[in-house]
């Protein structure tokens, strides 16, 4: 099923919350509003026409100039072949994009829909700073709960992949700069 048809189905079931679609690009995707995203996700997985049961990846992208984060979910439906020996088919490959404001980035977590989302969301939070609400493995932070960090140490400040990320000068006494008169570590 082509991404356009999927967008049609979503539009007439959810209407307003499908805010935008983007098909001319090499990565056709449907934009969904953040608050309606968990229902849309559940629908995408359970609807028998779509059956998007495989979450391939979640990529958080930083749009510094228009002050927004985007979480791009790449989904696919793995359908078994006619008989056991037949290869499974990868159909309905579609991407879903969810925008969120840059200074207070909150997107509801879909870890309860696809178990794979658990680690991807933790990584997106850890590296980009997008907070996924009621994530199964969340921790009490400064402002409310956020997913636990997965790659960086638990007490690391800042999120490295943000465009305006300031490199720390040292971490627990370990200097980030080896040359003497460097104000800012050259990476």
């Amino acid at each position, binding site marked *: 099923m082509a991404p356009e048809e999927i967008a049609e189905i979503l539009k007439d079931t959810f209407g307003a919350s499908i805010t935008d679609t983007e098909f001319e*690009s*090499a*990565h056709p995707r449907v934009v969904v509003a953040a608050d309606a995203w968990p229902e849309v996700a559940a629908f995408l997985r359970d609807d028998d026409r779509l059956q998007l*049961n*495989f*979450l*391939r*990846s979640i*990529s*958080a*992208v*930083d749009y510094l100039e228009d002050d927004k984060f985007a979480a*791009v979910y*790449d989904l696919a439906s*793995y359908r*078994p*072949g006619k008989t*056991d*020996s*037949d*290869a*499974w*088919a*990868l159909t309905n490959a579609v*991407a879903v994009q969810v925008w969120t404001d840059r200074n207070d980035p909150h997107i509801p977590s879909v870890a309860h829909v*696809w*178990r*794979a989302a*658990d*680690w*991807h969301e933790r*990584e997106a939070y850890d*590296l980009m700073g997008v907070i996924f609400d009621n994530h199964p*493995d969340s921790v009490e932070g400064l402002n409310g709960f956020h997913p*636990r*960090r*997965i*790659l*960086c*140490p*638990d007490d690391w400040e800042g999120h*490295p*992949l943000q*465009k305006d990320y300031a490199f720390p000068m040292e971490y627990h006494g370990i200097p980030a700069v080896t040359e003497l008169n460097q104000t800012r570590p050259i*990476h």
Partner: protein
Amino acid sequence: MADVILESQPDINADLSSDQIQQQDLQTEEMLVNMGPQHPATHGVLRVVLRTDGEMVLEAVPHIGYLHRCAEKIGETVAPYQYIPYTDRMDYLAGMNNNLAFAQAVEKLTGLESEITERTKLIRIVFAELNRIASHLVSFGTYGLDLGAFTPFLYAFREREYILDLFESACGARLTYSYITVGGVTDDLPERFVDITREFLDYFEPKVHEYNLLLSHNHIFIKRTANVGVITAQEALDYGLSGPVLRGSGVNFDLRKQPGSGYEEFDFNVPVGQGEKGTVGDCWDRYIVRVSEMLESVKIIRQALDKLDGTEGQETLHKKGKTLKLPADEIYYEIENPRGQLGFFVRGNGSAIPDRVKARGPSFCNLCVTEKVCEDVLLGDVAAIIGSIDVVMGEVDR
């Protein structure tokens, strides 16, 4: 006897560095054991915190990030053809496949794909499949090591040496090749490459049957791996597993068989776990899928080498890759890496340097299942399960 204070369970996710955990650990019946970054059974720097009671492991929580080099941040500062060496270091056992994934993603994004000649495509497939054999040989050898059989490791590495010699003759490197770049391959094949590869394939094929006799059908090996760490097909899909781990659970899905993967004209079949020795989706199934995949790769390479003879003299150089301008668009492209589906999300903004590069590492996704699989198993099985998932930490931490 002194009474042992039975407090609540130790909080496994507490920050283990503080000595407070040390007290908590002593009082309770259960023990928190650090199958820490330095441990022979964790391939590379993976730390698994086990909450154990005697020999039984009640809960296993993997902690990753020890090899995190933030490759994705560097992706936003260098042009694609300069980023190829970074993709080598992600899954350092399958450098060729990583280069291929990133190169094809960028080519598809910029439309350079139409100019890739037939010969380049064939060379890329030969090298990708050779690297798949080398990577599976390493996983076969280390899996034997995890279960205490030292000998298969040596045989596997003896065979892998020839593949590395082939790579060295082609691109001069043995581990981090950067041979497949955006727009083609760095340089053409050395003169007797095709004959030597054919010699190697004839030598290698009977060896796989020898391994099966030595390890796969060894009674103790079966006892240690059958019915251990079972992952059902539904769980595999739900956790987003891919590659031999997914196929081990009975899902006959291989990206190379999907349309548009470039493997259409080769005929090979995809080994899938049938629960021969135990239930479908146990450690033995994942292991035997990898071993039989090596035989399939040999078939592919043979067919590719035959086709390669007819494509002498075609252009394979990568001049165009250097002066590439990325459109203001994004793409997500996956290929079948030995460990699973390696995907690259590349977003350009009109200039030569990409705006965002994200790598979807198969080991990263496969590792998240250990928490569920390693519940109520014995200590010996934790090593068997992690070994069967075949994790490379470079790819998990990126």
